[in-house]
């Protein structure tokens, strides 16, 4: 029993260390890829970012709307409906925007990255590249990683902005909060630091989600089952890592 736990722990440590080394190698190649192979990165921005935009916008609208509803129905008890904007704005900008976007990103783009790279590996495309003295890390892993890192802050910004619009629609148009009060209260309560907190989070989550997706794909067992497992692990581990880091960043910033 104890021995099993110990073995699991060592296995975890082994995998974690390998992932850290992988991350460092990605960072090492980042400048040269950005400089020489930017078209590859741009294509991955399209793949990870532009193709995720629809799901992000639809989810943002409804998350913002439900925040507006909840905030209104609870604040109404204290005759404080005017502060609906503060509630929705703070929740969206500081927490919900970055976190839900990261989870959606893991589901939409992370799985695509992991399964794509995993399938490349299963069909020996990566080995073929190595045979031709082409480093697959540089041509496959790094552009996908960078595409995700660049896309995430933009996706978070879109999600948050659409979310604010959604809560505005619900609170102002549907429930009749005064439009001036809504935005006035929101603008008075929010500082630049609050917006920056959301942006920092989006950058960290972008690195985490892209790294985990690329790593899981790159490190998958080259079989059909292995690719499937890599895809699942990407979503699960990204969700855990994002929520843990969210807590740590919030504790650190506050």
């Amino acid at each position: 029993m104890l021995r099993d736990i110990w073995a699991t722990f060592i296995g975890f440590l082994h995998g974690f260390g390998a992932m850290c080394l992988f991350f460092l190698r990605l960072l090492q190649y980042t400048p040269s890829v950005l400089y020489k192979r930017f078209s590859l990165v741009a294509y991955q921005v399209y793949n990870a970012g532009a193709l995720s935009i629809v799901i992000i916008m639809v989810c943002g609208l409804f998350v913002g709307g439900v925040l507006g509803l909840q905030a209104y129905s609870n604040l109404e008890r204290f005759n404080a409906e005017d502060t609906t904007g503060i509630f929705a704005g703070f929740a969206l900008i500081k927490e919900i925007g970055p976190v839900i976007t990261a989870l959606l990103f893991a589901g939409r783009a992370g799985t695509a990255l992991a399964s794509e790279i995993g399938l490349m590996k299963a069909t020996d495309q990566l080995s073929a590249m190595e045979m031709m003295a082409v480093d697959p890390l540089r041509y496959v892993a790094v552009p996908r990683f960078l595409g995700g890192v660049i896309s995430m802050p933009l996706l978070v910004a879109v999600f948050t902005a659409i979310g604010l619009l959604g809560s505005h629609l619900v609170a102002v148009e549907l429930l009749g909060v005064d439009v001036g009060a809504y935005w006035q209260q929101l603008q008075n309560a929010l500082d630049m630091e609050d917006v920056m907190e959301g942006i920092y989070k989006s950058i960290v989550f972008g690195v985490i989600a892209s790294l985990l997706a690329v790593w899981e794909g790159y490190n998958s067992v080259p079989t059909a089952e292995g690719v499937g497992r890599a895809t699942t692990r990407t979503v699960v581990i990204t969700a855990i890592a994002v929520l843990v880091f969210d807590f740590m960043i919030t504790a650190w910033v506050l």
Partner: protein
Amino acid sequence: MKQTRTIELGTGLFALLGIGALFFLTTQTTGNNDFDAAETFQVEARFDNVGSLKKRAPVSMSGVTIGRVTNIRFDPVALEAVVTFVIDSRYDEIPDDSDASILTAGLLGSQYIGLQPGGSPVYLEEGSEIYFTQSAVILENLVGKFLLRGGSDDDGDDGDE
């Protein structure tokens, strides 16, 4: 060819949307209470008690924000709080016998400095000090006084009058 164009178009649209949203978040959702005047002058005021006044709190006159608190320190000799604040240089005709009081925005709002104009022909300028000040109203002291009303004056009353 068509394929590349779609990708370019999609990426461009995405980047534009993202940057637009970032711009919206940083400019439209944050403080219209931000006071950023190009030129300011600095004024000091001494208070017995500043309550929970914070740095960057607004300084307002007739309800309009004309300045911002830049520093709050304690004078160990006079045993008073010294609040330093800056006022937009456009407002250079404020009488120097104006009265500064620490007020609260709403029942639970944050505290700010309110200026009431005096009648002196001399105006506030860089380095002036406001002599007429009124401390923050500490809610706990008021409640304490209210509860202890009827008792003799010196038991339990450690207020700052």
